[in-house]
């Protein structure tokens, strides 16, 4: 029980830090907007074309944005060595990871809620009818992104060239998430929308595998 209560306190701290400055969320939203606009130059976004490409573009944009957004996750704990303080304050170091990955999931879902309507207008795709189902896919995908991303940001924070290293470590690892989320999103944006439970189950499996791995091995990443 102390794990969850610790994590809840730390989650509150993560959210407070973010909502005092709002740096991370604003830059991420603007970054995804830039990517979406740039994508529109690479092909003709008519409605039949965009049905085919849009889900992939959307998830690629989120993947790139996440690999940038997750950078400061552990880096900013190094400035005043707050990581040591965090480690001393919790019984199980997994609470630190749990809080950070929950915060990152919330941030990602938030950017998706903000950007999905914009995206649907710009690319001529109606999401109104399937919005709740889309959010479910987004939540599961974001969880997968955050679980692996939080772990790898703890790794890359200890290396040189960390800004380049995190995307390099993270993006190949996220291949299954990209495929499963894109397929599930594409099925929902299809002319005959369908919620693909098989891909959702796959995302759930991915999340479970890496959450377990993080639970087992995460603490070793936080040692001095």
């Amino acid at each position, binding site marked *: 029980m102390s794990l969850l209560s610790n994590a809840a306190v730390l989650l509150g701290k993560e959210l407070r830090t973010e909502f005092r400055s709002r740096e991370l969320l604003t830059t991420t939203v603007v970054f995804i907007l830039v990517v979406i606009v740039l994508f529109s130059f690479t092909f003709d976004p008519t409605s039949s074309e965009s049905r085919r490409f849009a889900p992939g573009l959307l998830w690629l944009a989120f993947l790139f944005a996440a690999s940038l957004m997750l950078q400061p996750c552990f880096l900013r704990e190094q400035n005043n060595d707050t990581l040591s303080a965090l480690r001393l304050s919790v019984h199980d170091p997994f609470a630190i990871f749990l809080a950070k990955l929950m915060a990152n999931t919330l941030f990602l879902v938030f950017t998706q809620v903000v950007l999905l309507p914009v995206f649907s207008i710009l690319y001529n795709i109606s999401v109104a009818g399937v919005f709740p189902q889309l959010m479910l896919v987004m939540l599961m995908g974001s969880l997968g992104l955050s679980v692996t991303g939080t772990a790898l940001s703890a790794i890359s924070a200890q290396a040189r060239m960390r800004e380049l*290293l995190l995307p390099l470590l993270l993006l190949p690892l996220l*291949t299954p998430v990209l*495929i499963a989320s894109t397929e599930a999103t594409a099925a929902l944006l299809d002319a005959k929308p369908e919620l693909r439970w098989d891909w959702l189950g796959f995302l759930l499996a*991915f999340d479970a*595998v890496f959450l377990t791995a993080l639970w087992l091995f995460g603490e*070793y*990443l936080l040692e001095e």
Partner: protein
Amino acid sequence: MKKNVLIASVVVLLMCAAAYASLFVAPTESKMGTIQRIFYLHAPSGMVALLSFFVCFVGNLAYVFTRQPKWDWLGVSAAEVGMAFCTVLILTGPIWAHPVWGIWWTWDARLTLTFVLWLLYISYLLLRTLVDDPDRRAMVSAVYGIFAFLDVPLVYGSIRWWRTQHPQPVIMGGPGSGLEPTMRLVFRFWFVNLVILMIFLIRERYRLEAMRAEVKLIEREAEGA
């Protein structure tokens, strides 16, 4: 030193014998012709690459739990050897695919998996070059190695569901699969040889890593004195 030269010559002789077997002993395949002979190098390389990555995974796990540097040395040695076999796999594939499929590359399940695998372990080796402290490097790369290996079945599963074009597994495939007896023999010979080569290379690389650690230690002692 003598023992090493002996082992190395045996490995080289075995590889020559394997090359001879695939070029002259194995019969020519009826549909694909002589290009099929690359299969004896191609398919076992893939299996041995996976085997090396598994050895790397075992080394990573053992390091996390025991923190003995030797497991880290095993991890990096196996990852590098696995990369070498994976590169052979990626290079020999297109040479076969171009005459048979008419294209160099296709985004089929196993091809894509190999590519992603290759990228994952390149990242693993890159990560190692970017962390200076040896203990830190060993620990973070071990955890990344575990994550990378856990990702392999997931990548394969996701791409498999998504699309596939590669010839169905010839060995242990469905009914109607299977190799002609001489071909099977040559294939097994190649597989055993490549496993021997893998063990030899990992062993040599491991010794190099151990030697490096020893030199570091002596350097530090010399500085202290």
